[in-house]
């Protein structure tokens, strides 16, 4: 301060406050003394003094104004943030099971309708008493699992879309009037991605089998159909809940997302991917199948003891040749195999807001070699959900990119205003585009000349893989099919599993075919 004080002595603007009498302005003689004193105190001190010298016009009020602006800015930012948080509806927290406010609205709102993408109501509230509403499901059993129920607990869409169904974005004045009249407001309508016709086809095609069907759009992750059997009547669930809960067939379980099945030969897709990754020269693979083989002391046979003769990887895939697969798998690296499986989301959480099970892959670097043969053909301890199997085949169809599967397309207020639109999102790149392309070629082979040839020679092109998974001694195999269509620019991916139904090609492929047909009839 002093330095500045001295230098600017002659100028007019000096306003440095010296409040106490003791510090009265120095007279000229003292000033000289101070100047000397500063020099004595060294260069650094001088510099620092210069830096912190008070401003020329030392009017505190101006600085106070600056402080006011500074805080105004802080609070405008804060208020903007709060407004943004509240104004953008539907955050990840809305449907969280940790939110104790999930049920708070049921007393003041009528839960909204759930509709399919083709505008068919699949869940609605109907008046059941003076002030009571209960849920009604016009499609009855067909959508039982995926739509779920709203009882003591909730499941399916009834749970995951609960937040939106109990919100109302209809006319504000209408809502206030309803409030005043002590009448409940109608919640918003949730349009799901589900397609009524596809669901119906899948439901009927699965027929009396237990099992599940999942239909997805590979490029968006939209779930078009999701069937699980045995089913239940959601309209009578409150009466039957006890019984269903104890049910041996666990009819309440959504097998599409929660059922854990041995993937059988559909898992050869994963094995093939791992083989391609580990062996750049995989196209040179060749094996002569004689029906049975023993590898690492494990005896493996091809379905029906068929000898497939000389096959490369295409042939092995097309005919689902177990012997060829256990042979090529015997050289695979366990740790790397696990890594590939986990990249494809086995052992991992799935990005879906439904009750689901994690698929299981148990091999790791320490597993004995004798585990490999069974694992490579999808037997052994590997278990998968139909949903994940569908997601994997969808990723192949979508150039290796796994989309986040979703069931809610958009939300509309009861008077028809769009409230929120859900958009497709990439979940992960689970394989390279090149790998996806090679796997697609393998799967095309399955349709052209292999176990899924029932899909060949049709108007549209298909790719897929069948499976016949053994699960219990002396019982029929589970019939699997995973596949997509068309091969170029795929629009639909399907996963079918029918429990104890026999072979994939004889049971699962025809079911899938019906679904594909319905899809193409609807989307000409």
């Amino acid at each position, binding site marked *: *301060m*002093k330095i500045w004080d001295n230098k600017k002595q*002659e100028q*007019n*603007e*000096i*306003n*440095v*406050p010296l*409040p*106490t009498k003791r*510090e009265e*302005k120095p007279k000229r003689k003292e000033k000289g003394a101070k100047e000397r004193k500063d020099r004595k105190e060294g260069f650094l*001190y001088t510099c*620092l*003094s210069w*830096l*912190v*010298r*008070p*401003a020329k*016009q*030392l*009017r*505190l*009020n*101006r*600085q*106070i104004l*600056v*402080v*006011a602006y*500074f*805080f*105004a800015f*802080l*609070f405008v*930012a*804060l*208020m903007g*943030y*709060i*407004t943004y*948080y*509240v104004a953008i509806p539907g*955050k*990840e*927290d*809305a449907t*969280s099971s*940790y*939110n*104790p*406010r999930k049920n*708070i609205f049921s007393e003041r709102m009528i839960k909204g309708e759930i509709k399919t993408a083709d505008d068919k109501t699949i869940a609605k509230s109907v008046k059941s008493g003076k002030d009571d509403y209960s849920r009604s499901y016009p499609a009855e059993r067909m959508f039982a699992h995926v739509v779920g129920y709203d009882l003591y607990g909730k499941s399916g869409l009834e749970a995951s879309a609960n937040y939106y169904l109990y919100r109302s974005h209809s006319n504000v004045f209408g809502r*206030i009037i309803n*409030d*005043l009249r*002590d009448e409940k407001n109608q919640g918003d309508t949730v349009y799901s991605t589900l397609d009524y016709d596809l669901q119906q086809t899948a439901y009927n095609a699965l027929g009396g089998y237990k099992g599940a069907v999942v239909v997805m759009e590979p490029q968006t992750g939209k779930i078009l159909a999701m069937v699980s059997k045995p089913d239940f009547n959601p309209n009578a669930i409150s009466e039957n809940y006890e019984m269903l809960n104890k049910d041996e067939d666990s009819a309440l379980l959504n097998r599409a997302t929660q059922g854990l099945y041995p993937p059988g030969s559909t898992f050869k897709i994963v094995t093939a991917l791992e083989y391609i990754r580990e062996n750049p020269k995989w196209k040179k693979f060749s094996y002569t199948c004689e029906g049975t083989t023993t590898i690492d002391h494990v005896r493996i046979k091809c379905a029906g003891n068929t000898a497939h003769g000389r096959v490369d990887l295409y042939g092995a895939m097309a005919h689902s040749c177990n012997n060829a697969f256990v042979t090529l798998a015997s050289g695979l690296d366990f740790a790397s195999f696990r890594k590939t499986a986990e990249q494809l989301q086995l052992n991992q959480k799935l990005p879906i807001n439904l009750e689901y099970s994690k698929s299981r892959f148990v091999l790791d670097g320490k597993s004995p070699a004798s585990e490999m043969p069974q694992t490579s053909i999808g037997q052994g301890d590997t278990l998968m959900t139909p949903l994940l199997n569908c997601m994997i085949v969808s990723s192949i169809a979508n150039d290796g990119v796994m989309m986040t599967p979703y069931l809610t397309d958009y939300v509309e207020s009861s008077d028809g205003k769009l409230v929120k639109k859900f958009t497709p999102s990439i979940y992960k790149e689970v394989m390279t585009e090149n790998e996806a392309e090679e796997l697609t070629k393998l799967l095309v082979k399955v349709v052209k000349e292999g176990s899924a040839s029932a899909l060949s020679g049709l108007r549209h092109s298909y790719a897929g893989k069948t499976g016949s998974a053994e699960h219990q001694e002396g019982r029929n195999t589970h019939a699997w099919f995973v596949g997509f269509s068309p091969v170029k620019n795929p629009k639909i991916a399907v996963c079918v599993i029918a429990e104890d139904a026999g072979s994939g090609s004889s049971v699962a492929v025809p079911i899938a075919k019906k679904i594909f047909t319905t899809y193409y009839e609807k989307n000409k």
Partner: protein
Amino acid sequence: MVHIILVLTGYLNIILAAAYTLTSFQLFPDLPPKRKKKLFRRQEHTLLQFHFFCNLNLILLQQDVKLIYFYGAQLLFILFVMFAYRHIYKGTSRLLTNNMLFFMVVGLVMLTRLSYKDYALNQFITIVACFLVFMLVPLLMKMLRFWERITWVYGIGGFLLLATVLVFGVEEYGATNWISIAGVTLQPSEFAKIIFILFIACRLSKSLELKDLIITTAIAAAYVLFLVLERDLGAALIFFIVYLVMLYVATGRLTLFISGMVAGAGAAVVAYQLFTHVQTRVNAWRDPWAIIDGDGGGYQICQSLFAIGTGSWFGLGLGQGVPNTIPVVYSDFIFSALAEEFGTIFVLCLILVFVSCLLVFLDASMRAGKRMYKLIALGFGVCFMFQVFLNIGGVVKFIPLTGVTLPLISYGRSSVASVLLIFAITQGIYLLGQNDEGDMNEDMGQQEAGTERN
């Protein structure tokens, strides 16, 4: 019938709060006294109506006769405060008094809703007791002028106060910043704050010599360090910012403020590396959903966000939500409870009233004659407002949680007492500023002195 009243009062309260907010800004420009008087009367009526309808709501909901008496007691107290400040202390800021009452009403209503027995009654007793004692403060400030000169009593006293936690300290919420004397827990840092501001104001108003600045800065840094070691991060941050702002205003050098902020940012990075509790707080801020389970603090912030999101614009209505699911909702998280039940429009109004309150502080600072008064009022304003920012910013996930209370609204003896003291001293400064016409406008005086010198 009850339902209609509940719904109507719900909307009415939002309108009243908005009307109050409006008047709290209308009163700033220089208005003709008649108009000003009318506005003040309107503001006070709005406040009383808001208080009445909130309590009506509570009484209807809880159906408890005690609440009627409680309402009566509060009403008497409010009328007393309005009367006392208007007639005994002429020249104090009526707007500051009203704003103080508004916060108290909002706080008491929410605490009554959360639990009359556990929080509201205690809070009310604290408020009344503190208020009556602090009524004397403006008077004493005027009569005993020695308080302006005892710089080092403040400097050392503040440290002694903070040091009490070393002797009587008890740990709460992961920080050792509470003391327990005869079963009463207090938070010394709440009071040290005031002493600290008085100290800094004394120092900076007397001399701006480099040597003195260095000493002052060193002592301020020692305070902050002490608080950091006590793990009272919120208080440390408040002390830090208050000092920087006061230094800036006193010297007029923005560079000082900026370099201080840069140093502070550096210190924050070091603190993040050194202390696990800082890391937890930051992690819980970054992605609370990832650590919603366990004791990472994610659960608390998620519950707070649920509450705010569910409340939406108009709120669920007083007594209609479930704010008790938020841990420590009565204290640090009371803002979320307000957002849930009164709605976002209401809490935005509340924030604006806080801003209005800051403007009153700054107005007091601008009007005050002496540099010291200016700096004290400014320091209090910044301290008060920055605490509001830390609290609200924390519970809405705008910034990491720092564990500070919402002044006058959160439940807490020390918090309420210290804020009431800050208000009382500021009123005293208003009074001194209005009466000390003699040394009014020191800046101008200096300008004249400067001209003279030439």
